[in-house]
């Protein structure tokens, strides 16, 4: 098969557009729409140790199923959390996209993310490799798994009361 089939080209562009939409929704605080971007059994994971792949058996910063993602949003919007009141302003950029695989149903996409946070007169930065597993559902895509590998994950972080 031709390595540059039109299907794959579309897949990369579709995937990029989709994860950019996810990023924009997080920065714009469109959390209900964000929660709708995931497949039913999807996981949002922020691991501690570099290189770990069996996330369930290791300690993570976040290991969220649908219930936990909804709780994370509720905590950000609930107004009770002193670290999320006010919520940090965030701006994130995704780039260096690479389509790792596409079997027609599932797309694996890797990219980098730089996120800048501003809160209480302090600016902070979080840089990560992000691994997306996207699935074609109906006419569009859903996130089946998102793994955010912070480059300093195994070092000391400050509080992150929002979604990376």
């Amino acid at each position, binding site marked *: 098969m031709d390595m540059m089939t039109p299907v794959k080209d579309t897949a990369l562009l579709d995937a990029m557009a989709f994860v950019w939409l996810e990023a924009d929704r997080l920065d714009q605080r469109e959390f209900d729409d964000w929660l709708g971007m995931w497949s039913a059994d999807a996981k949002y994971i922020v691991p*501690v140790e570099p290189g770990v792949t069996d996330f369930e*058996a290791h*300690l*993570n910063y*976040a290991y969220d199923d649908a219930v936990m993602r909804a709780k994370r949003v509720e*905590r950000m919007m*609930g107004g009770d959390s*002193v*670290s999320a009141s006010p919520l940090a302003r965030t701006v994130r950029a995704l780039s260096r996209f690479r389509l790792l695989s596409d079997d027609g149903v599932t797309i694996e996409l890797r990219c980098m993310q730089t996120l800048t946070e501003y809160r209480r007169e302090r600016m902070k930065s979080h840089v990560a490799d992000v691994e997306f597993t996207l699935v074609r559902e109906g006419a569009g895509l859903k996130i089946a798994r998102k793994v955010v590998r912070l480059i300093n994950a195994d070092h*000391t972080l400050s509080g992150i009361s929002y979604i990376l």
Partner: protein
Amino acid sequence: MKDLDTPFAALVQDDKALTTLYTDPGLFEAEMDKIFTKTWVWVAHESEIATPGSYKRARVGLEPVIVTRDRKKNIHVLLNRCRHRAATVCEVSKGKTNSFVCPYHGWAYGLDGSLRGVPYEESYAGKLERGKLGLKALRTETYNGLVFATFNDEIEPLEDFLAGAKKWIDLFMKQGAGYPVKANGEHKFSFPGNWKIQLENTTDAYHFPLVHKPFLKLTDVETEEQFDIMNKGGWVEDLGNGHSVMIMMPELVDLEENLDAPIPDKFADLAQALRDEGHEEQQVRRIIRAVGGSGFNVNLFPNLGCSAAFFRVLQPVSVTETEVRHIALAMDGGPEIANRERLRIHEFFQGPMGFGSPDDAEVWDRVQQGAQGGKELWLLLNRSTETEEPTAEGTVKGDVSSEIGMRAAYRQWKKLMEA
């Protein structure tokens, strides 16, 4: 007041401390010298260096050390500083090795710190006293898996130092459910504030219903009820030498008592899975208890908390910056499904993205910010001073929201600073 005459009376009295304890850089330097290099400081759990050749880095105060296990299984705590020209000999957080080789000129040290190799040694013409040039070793003792070290050769034995806290350490380790307790990963986070703000917090029930309201709202109903700690008959006890314990859930002091109590609904599926794996009913109940952790926090002065279900390690960085580690615990060799449940519980509250820790870090940050003002004002530590009572074991306790734990810590702080 009886302590008005002492050198530090202007800073610490029985039931209050001056705001500058959080902000004075000179005091911070003095603390590193008079407290952290003079007392027992926790550096590791034995499981972190379980096998010969394993090591981890740590700090005693600001001084970098390596905790090692040698071939004879002895534990050493060694200053991470080449005896030649001071470079660190280890820059990896944890691992296994046969030796530590300085990257600057290649001096090589064994797991016990002894100097094993010096490149081009002939330049010393046989006069280099290798036997005196091992990595500086700290005095090291262990208690129930906890490894402590000190630069102070004159200090009392560790067990005497731990005093009344030993009983609570033993109770805490029951969350192994008969398996050895094992460190199982850690969250590290920092906050821009003084280390004593976090030290105080480990026996501060008073903040819980407010700061952790989001956690209480988002957790399950059973856990929310369990953490209604202001109304459950808990208490805080002064254990001597600056140590204290806060009992939040009196029914979870001894995890092996009252095993016939109903298994909480939140653990029903896990209990069934354990039965399906072939565990006897009593062992299922022990494991379920272990998964939930202990109902108390032991605060060991100056840097370790055995806190409900994890170790909390304090690392002062500067007068206005502190690193905190929350080390998750597991049953070593225990059922994997139960250890995974423990990880998920840890992730829920702890760490920089947990539903509890960031709110703690935020209020500690606010304390440090607020303490930039009113340096003549006192921090009030007098909750329950009027209602303290002696225990049968000769200690003193106050109600669950008492500040007796902080008073105990500051009394020890003052004793060491004045020594």
